[in-house]
């Protein structure tokens, strides 16, 4: 793998940038062995002479690599145990015999070996004999048996499977609140030792999230346990004895194990049922879930109702608007009809005024007007009338109204004719009688 290219914006004085010092170091002892050490020693001694004090100081500084007996694995021995018979090894508490009762399944192999050695140093029968004691070797044999079981991973699991001392009793049903969580936590923590899978979810407390609680119950309802019950087997007779008897006991044992295993699974299931039945968190989550669900439902119904109402209101509004529009249209239609009629009537009336005016003006004749004159004038009135709209007729009628004097009437008419000629509606010379 090659060095990276220098970033374009990199620069430093003399092309070297110092950043941090070494983060840490520890004092250790190098072994004074080999040619390379001799070279080191020559440099390190540098013609100095080191004293006893230097030795002590240096030794104190150096990181230790040998374990020191910190007395951690020593418990007072139970006088009852010291009286035990080795042949009863099946019923002995192997951890207690070795002084490891506070560790049990948690004891490391190293701890077991150290505990064993401690006991051997103390109880070896040859030592006791050398010291003039007549104590028999029964307890020593118990120690050896305990060690044999605990240093064999298979046998140890079999023993741990039935080590009731490591059990934590399930809480009583009465517990509530913080005590409930504490007690079940403790119970499941102990029970977790049987799990094939790790890490094992913890019970958690009242503040545990829904996810945590669900994980917990999921894991535990599908618990995969290594627990086995060989340790409780009935002794199988030796090879040499009756083969049938041997096979019989073996079959019995196999069945008993299976049964105990099934019972153990049921036990756990039942306890899980108990725990979950009393688990306020589950209730709370359910209520919360219900509340959420109800709210959703209510919301949905409200929304549906509103939608229906809205639709209804909209429809009504639309209908109303339509009706109103129709009403209005009708009214308008009617009023316009009246107006038209009124206008027609007005036109008629005005036309009567126009005609009346020329009649009043005696058809602009001196004396009796000839029929031709009357016709000519009335024709010209019709002509003018035909060229103007009702408003102009009305305006003209207005001007003519009340006029009695022929000259005056004539001048109104001639103005009108003049206007129409100017507007291009009449030609010069049209409506001659009125001009």
């Amino acid at each position, binding site marked *: 793998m090659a060095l990276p290219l*220098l970033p374009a914006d990199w620069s430093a004085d003399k092309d070297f940038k110092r950043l941090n010092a070494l983060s840490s*170091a520890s004092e250790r002892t190098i072994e004074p*062995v080999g040619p390379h050490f001799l070279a080191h020693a020559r440099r390190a001694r540098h013609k100095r002479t080191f004293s006893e004090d*230097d030795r002590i100081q240096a030794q104190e500084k150096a990181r230790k690599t040998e374990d020191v007996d910190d007395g951690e694995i020593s418990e007072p021995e139970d006088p009852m145990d010291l009286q035990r018979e080795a042949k009863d090894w099946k019923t002995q508490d192997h951890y207690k015999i070795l002084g490891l009762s506070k560790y049990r399944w948690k004891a490391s192999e190293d701890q077991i070996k150290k505990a064993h050695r401690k006991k051997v140093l*103390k109880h070896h029968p040859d030592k006791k004999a050398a010291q003039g004691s007549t104590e028999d070797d029964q307890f020593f044999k118990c120690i050896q048996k305990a060690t044999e079981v605990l240093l064999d991973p298979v046998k140890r699991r079999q023993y741990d499977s039935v080590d009731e001392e490591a059990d934590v009793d399930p809480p009583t049903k009465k517990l509530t609140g913080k005590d409930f969580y504490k007690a079940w936590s403790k119970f499941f923590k102990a029970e977790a030792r049987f799990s094939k899978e790790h890490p094992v979810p913890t019970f958690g407390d009242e503040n545990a999230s829904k996810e945590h609680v669900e994980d917990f119950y999921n894991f535990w309802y599908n618990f995969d346990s290594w627990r086995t019950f060989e340790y409780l087997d009935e002794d199988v007779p030796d090879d040499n004895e009756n083969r049938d008897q041997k096979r019989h006991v073996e079959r019995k044992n196999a069945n008993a194990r299976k049964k105990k295993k099934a019972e153990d699974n049921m036990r756990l299931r039942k306890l899980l049922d108990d725990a979950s039945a009393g688990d306020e968190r589950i209730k709370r989550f359910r209520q919360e879930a219900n509340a959420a669900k109800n709210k959703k439902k209510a919301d949905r119904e409200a929304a549906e109702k509103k939608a229906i109402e809205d639709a209804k209101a909209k429809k009504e509004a639309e209908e109303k608007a339509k009706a109103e529009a129709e009403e209005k249209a009708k009214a308008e239609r009617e009023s316009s009809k009246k107006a038209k009629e009124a206008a027609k009537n007005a036109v008629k009336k005005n036309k009567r005024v126009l005609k009346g005016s020329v009649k009043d003006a005696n058809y602009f004749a001196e004396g009796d007007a000839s029929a031709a004159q009357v016709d000519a004038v009335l024709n010209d009135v019709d002509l003018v009338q035909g060229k103007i709209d009702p408003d102009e007729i009305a305006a003209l009628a207005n001007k003519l109204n009340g006029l009695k004097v022929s000259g005056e009437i004539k001048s109104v008419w001639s103005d009108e004719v003049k206007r129409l000629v100017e507007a291009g509606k009449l030609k010069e010379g049209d409506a001659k009688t009125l001009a």
Partner: protein
Amino acid sequence: MAENASNAGPEPGSRVTIGITFGNSNSSIAYTTDSKAEVIADEAGDRQIPTVLSYNDGDEYYGGQAKAFLVRQPKITIAYFRDFLGQDFKSIDPTHCHAAAHPEDTSGTVSFSVKDKEEESSTLSVSEVSTRFMRRLVSAASDYLGKKVTSAVITVPTSYTEKQREALIKAANDAGLEILQLIADPVAAILAYDARPEADISDKIVVVADLGGTRSDVTVVASRGGMYTILATAHDFDFAGVHLDNALMEHFAKEFMKKHNTDPRSNPKSLAKLRLEAEATKKALSLGSNAQFSVESLADGYDFSVSINRIRYEMVGRKVFDGFNRLVEGAVKKAGLDVLDVDEVVMCGGTSHTPRIANNLRGIFPETTTIQAPATSTTAINPSELQARGAALQASLIQEYEAADIEQSTHPAVTTVKHIANAIGVVTGENGDVFLPIMPAETAVPARRTVQIPTPAEGGDVLVRVVEGGTHIKVTKPEPKPAKEASDDKEDDEDDSDFDSDEEEEEEKREKIWKIGGELAEAAIRGVKKGGKVEVTINVAADLGVTVTAREVGAKGGVRGQI
């Protein structure tokens, strides 16, 4: 070394030196010629000399001859006493002496009573017993070398206390032997390997599995440029050679009982015969795939001869073999390391001849780890001889020094040294995200390491980023294979569970991943020519000051800076 400094030993020039391992079960003596170590055979031709003394009719026997007396004359035969030296009676484990002279409590100290003269018995302190045994070793070596051996380096367990060291030195001095130095068993074994001319003195993590007769000791050592630092140790008295003997004894006793209806373990003499032959059979099974167990008049006057093959033996001893695996793994863990961090496993002690043990370790460690044992490596040195050879080599290295000089050179003020906690290296890769270690963690300072690093194909200006690095282990679970639901025919379905378990056995993948840590410095190397390399030197001083030097290989100049 303060203990023997006052003891006016021979002049350095006139020393004749050997290396000694003084075990509970066996001892060995070795010398060097032309800086090559050789193990010396005693008069009986043994290179592993049983650490046993026996007294018969006023005559003293040692080694193999004395061990043979365990059958007929156990009470006058002293064995398995090395660990008692420098110990109070209350702190000794007498288990292995049961079929020999029993240790006694002499006002709190350990002693043995044997009839060592024709008529009278003596009570011999364990120190005296050791002196007598040592005298025999020295005389065997002197006979072999043709000159009086004056001085020795002896190997001792790492757990040896100051009191035990003093007691051992006194016992040796009383035998007329000057002790130049006591060195740790596992370090002697490593030295025996590193002293070979073809040895590559690189930076490596070495696990020494010293599997003896009565105890097993595992040591994790950081080997850094030929200097050794012990990171962790584990001592075990429950899984060792005698426990394999015990397993075989039980096996053969049961076989015997099938035929003769009597338990050879119920009578001490039969038991002793059973043990001796079980051990011999065990050794034979290290070499051959079959061995014959045969004892004349094993019990009730019956002779007994059966054969056993290696596979059977490996079943019989399985619990002990598994125990070794866990012990070694536990020690690696105790050192804060992973099996992937281990470069080499050095197997020593007689029990390390056992092929099964070496093969098991071969399976535990990654393929890149060398397992130095006869069964797994053609270049392995005889595990029984490693420590004596290492001791002899060390003796030859220091024999020219005055005793006071040795004392000062091995003084804790000299051996207590700062070790860097994290690896130091540079960042490589196009994206600048790959850590290249230059100086590994647990290197004693002062120290200097140099590497040459390639540059991008076209050369140009490159960045040298000096950083600290750490590792973690990345575990990749195997992809769960899609369940083959649509099975072709029904019959297959029933066997499915069998296939499933096969799939589960598919192993997860574990890798060591370097992580870039704190930044120490940056330097630019400009105008590297096409295909050029950059040489980076890291120098850490005793006060942890770091000097970085970087230059293009073959070019002038370069960059140098201090942190």
